[in-house]
């Protein structure tokens, strides 16, 4: 008697191959969503660990200033040079200040600041919380009647959401200053006219939309660091894996949400 089992298995194999990663992705998305809801709930419900929040504000915000500032000044300067040389093809060199300001405030300021934070902060959060998981410190915290979501996750989420818009303001200012510096020192622009052109052209929404993006990016950076660290398993190797996943997933989600938010903002 012929058995239908073997051919059926073979026929279903492609479906299985697609289905397994798809189900895994859905499961992971659900786990991240549940983690995010618990984290946000912990931000808005007592107990609040203000000392932890302040410590994270310093670690995430203050200590990221140098890297964000340096990134912004070089990006602003390079952007000015590119727009000047590219705009020269259709005699549009003189709109360079406006385009630099627009590019920095709407896009590059928030995105680059967020990417710097993904590399610096998301990785550090994942490594720290992952090491705590590996050494039973998170279990110990729970047995000491302290919820890790309130003590570890909420302060980091709040600090990143507060810090990144502030860092973006710094990145916007320094990025535009970088463009100004190149324009005035290298390309022969008038310093006062450059500033006036930038001032009169920029609208509040240009800066505001960038800051709204930065708020979302800050949440993503802290969430990915906390999620991957909290769920780390497998000792030192697991902590390394969590750190990598935190940086990569932060970067991808920053770019994806940037596109979605830009679409939303340009259609408002």
């Amino acid at each position: 008697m012929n058995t239908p089992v073997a051919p059926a298995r073979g026929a279903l194999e492609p479906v299985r191959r697609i289905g397994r990663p798809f189900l895994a992705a859905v499961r992971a998305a659900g786990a991240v969503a549940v983690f995010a809801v618990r984290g946000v709930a912990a931000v808005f419900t007592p107990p609040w660990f203000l000392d932890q929040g302040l410590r994270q504000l310093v670690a995430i915000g203050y200590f990221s200033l140098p890297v964000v500032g340096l990134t912004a000044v070089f990006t602003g300067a390079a952007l000015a040079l590119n727009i000047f040389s590219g705009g020269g093809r259709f005699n549009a060199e003189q709109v360079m200040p406006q385009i630099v300001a627009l590019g920095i405030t709407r896009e590059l300021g928030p995105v680059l600041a967020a990417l710097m934070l993904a590399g610096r902060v998301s990785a550090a959060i994942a490594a720290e919380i992952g090491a705590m998981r590996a050494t039973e410190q998170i279990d110990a915290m729970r047995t000491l009647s302290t919820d890790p979501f309130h003590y570890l996750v909420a302060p980091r989420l709040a600090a990143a959401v507060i810090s990144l818009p502030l860092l973006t303001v710094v990145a916007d200012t320094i990025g535009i200053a970088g463009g100004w510096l190149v324009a005035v020192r290298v390309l022969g622009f008038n310093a006062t006219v450059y500033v006036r052109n930038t001032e009169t052209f920029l609208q509040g929404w240009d800066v505001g939309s960038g800051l709204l993006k930065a708020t979302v990016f800050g949440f993503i950076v802290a969430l990915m660091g906390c999620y991957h660290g909290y769920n780390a398993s497998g000792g030192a190797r697991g902590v390394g894996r969590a750190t990598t996943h935190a940086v990569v997933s932060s970067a991808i989600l920053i770019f994806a949400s940037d596109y979605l938010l830009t679409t939303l903002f340009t259609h408002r």
Partner: protein
Amino acid sequence: MTGVPKLEWKGITKRFEGARVLDGLDLSVAAGRSLVIVGGSGEGKSVTIKIALGLMRPDAGSVALDGQDLTGLSERSRRKVFSRVGVLFQSAALFDSLRVWENIAFRLINSDGVPRKTAKARAIGALGRVRLGPEVADLYPSELSGGMQKRVGLARAVVADPEILFFDEPTTGLDPITAAAINALIVEQVRHLGCTAVSITHDLASARTIGDEIAMLRSGRIIWRGAPGELDTTDNPYVRQFVSGRAEPVT
């Protein structure tokens, strides 16, 4: 045993990727008694204690503290119940970003709302109970030896005067002299507090010292239970093999 046990595991089953680690585990400990669960590596000792602490959910069964079922509790209710519990972890699990006294006073400051100054005084008092001086209070855990970390972990477990203490492999990784000192401190603290103690270990010397009773866990169930002195006289072949430390069963 008469009356409601202090802590009771009822029909606990737990699987990991198809492998059944606990298979209908039934176990209880009376108030004021010290129970030591012994067993080989991978027999589910840590899982047993983690389920009791609410750090892991069982697939079936329940855990009751003073007759109150703990398995279905919300996180908030669980935190309230576990304010009566102290735990010494295998690795001590000290928070490496906090000083020694902040580790000991963690529960007092962050859960009980005790002012930091009072909490520090109580932490230094707890350090004295485990034979460590106040000069240790401002060090970080990474500056301590393994034995000192265990003592600090014990101080953290007892500082809030718990009703029940859990010890997870309290002497693992320690030299025999330090292990004996930790065992003596455990016995002293359990007697001083008059609390119930549940320990897991595969160190029989430790089990004999700190336990009023010893329970042998094998294949997900308790296969033998008795007083420390009965370990050497039991007919149970697996217990005899375990006590004699032989690779083959004792005939």
